[in-house]
């Protein structure tokens, strides 16, 4: 199987997300970066599918040149090839991102053959636009289902599962296909030392993307309304148990 995974570099904030003074971005001065958990699972899924069915996995990102870090992380887990579409300045809007990724995929496929499966995360962790993967799939004329938490290969068909309120929905999608996956589809491995060393030597292909801006324009970021509560300290250590149970009775949890 030839598999492509599309990931995004995002900051990894801790207790709170601070906004830069100009309101245009998250203040990342003291933050590390990562890829979204959904995409980490997409990378793991690609590696597992290649282990089971043979073939090769490629990882692609559109982002700042520093996103090289996330590509090499994917490589350290077992992805063979990496492609960076470098941009400078603020994030591109979803339409622009999707058309640049579509163009890159078209070029990669012209050179080396079609991908049987293209994986995205269900949504990016930071902007949460819920659309780039779907736009790419439509532009390529391929089937796409989002929110996938299980993939089995059956000949030319993918059996894909997704969780809904009432239970699990099963889709049977013909390849070549595009799927958006959610965290929980697998438990991503940690990179081995050997993997990390190998990832340093991976040749990251760079293609400067070109695409027109879409119709959604960010004006500024705003903090979400914060819940402020004066915490009532019920006590220290096991001696607090009586006060806790009093509270549970008071709020009606324990009758």
């Amino acid at each position: 199987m030839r598999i492509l995974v599309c990931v995004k570099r995002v900051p990894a904030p801790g207790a709170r997300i601070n906004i830069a003074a100009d309101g245009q971005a998250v203040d990342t001065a003291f933050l590390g970066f990562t890829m979204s958990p959904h995409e980490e699972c997409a990378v793991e899924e690609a590696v597992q599918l290649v282990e089971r069915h043979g073939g090769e996995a490629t990882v692609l990102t559109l982002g700042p040149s520093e996103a090289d870090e996330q590509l090499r992380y994917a490589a350290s887990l077992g992805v063979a090839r990496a492609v960076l579409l470098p941009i400078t300045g603020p994030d591109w809007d979803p339409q622009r991102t999707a058309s640049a990724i579509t163009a890159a995929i078209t070029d990669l496929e012209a050179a080396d053959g079609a991908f049987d499966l293209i994986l995205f995360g269900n949504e990016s962790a930071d902007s949460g636009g819920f659309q780039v993967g779907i736009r790419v799939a439509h532009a390529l004329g391929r089937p796409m289902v989002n929110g996938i938490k299980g993939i089995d290969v059956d000949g030319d068909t993918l059996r894909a599962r997704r969780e809904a309120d009432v239970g699990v929905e099963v889709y049977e999608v013909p390849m070549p296909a595009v799927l958006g996956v959610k965290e929980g589809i697998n438990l991503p491995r940690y990179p081995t030392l050997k993997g990390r060393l190998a990832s340093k030597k991976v040749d990251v292909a760079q293609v400067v993307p070109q695409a027109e801006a879409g119709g959604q324009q960010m004006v500024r970021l705003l903090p979400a309304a914060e819940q402020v509560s004066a915490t009532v300290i019920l006590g220290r250590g096991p001696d607090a148990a009586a006060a806790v149970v009093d509270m549970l009775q008071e709020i009606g949890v324990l009758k």
Partner: protein
Amino acid sequence: MILVVVEHDRGTMSPATWEALAAARALGEVHALTIGEAADGLVDQIGNFGATVVHQVHGDVLGDYGPEAWGEVVAQAVKALDPTVVLATGTDRGNEVMAHAAARLDMPMVANVIEFGSDELTRVRWGGSLLERCRLDAPVRLLTVAHHAFAADESPVAASATPLAVELDPVLSRTLVRDRVERAAGVTLATAPVVVSGGRGVGSAEGFAPLQELAAELGGVVGCSRAVTNNGWRNHTDQVGQTGTRIAPDIYIACGISGAIQHWVGAMASKKILAINTDPEANMVTKADYAVIGDLHQVVPAITAEVRRRRG
């Protein structure tokens, strides 16, 4: 005219759709779009939320939910009905259908809107930890409404139903739901009245046994943080947070969880929060309603014992 895409599962309308219909009323005259014959019975219920006309679409590939088929229907409805705004639910299905429609119409789409200004919209990012003000340059505004951002208030009118003809390529059946596995009845993490959750501080898979006991004693379920699922101590189905489950119990008991923002967004709808943590400065402690400062391995069994003692 504002067109609301009705989210339903084989004829059962989702509560998120009630919210979308209620939100739409503030924007203008509301019409609704139902997809598939199974939804034909929803006209009165839709009227209760103020939509005057229900456009009903039938088709061979609409026997069950399918993201591509539904997206294509919405795209054709936009062309046929010429709405100024189209609203869908900010759920797995709603966001997905709107993105498929937007891709087909080659128009922008804004997900999870919480405020509609005259020319600016406010939407959520980071699963709700951050907001974005944005502008939209488009002939039709394709939007989804963030779940729980609007009250599902009723405003009954007599809605009329009218068929809407569409042409659907049979190839769209490739992404229809083929099969379903119903969930066993019982309390789930999303609906439990009590959630006893453990974080890295629990230390191991076995360390969850006392949390399980307390949860059982209180008629609740066990949850966890991502540090726990990453360590393989619990299944991801137990994870609370941005990339896990959003919960809203009467009480959330967070044991050995630091309260990172991505965890907090999943827990913040809880009515009350009790944090049990060795660190009095932990974010979970400072944001909680109640806290016990101490080692969860001692505190949790003591609470369980006290509950049992009072029950006699």
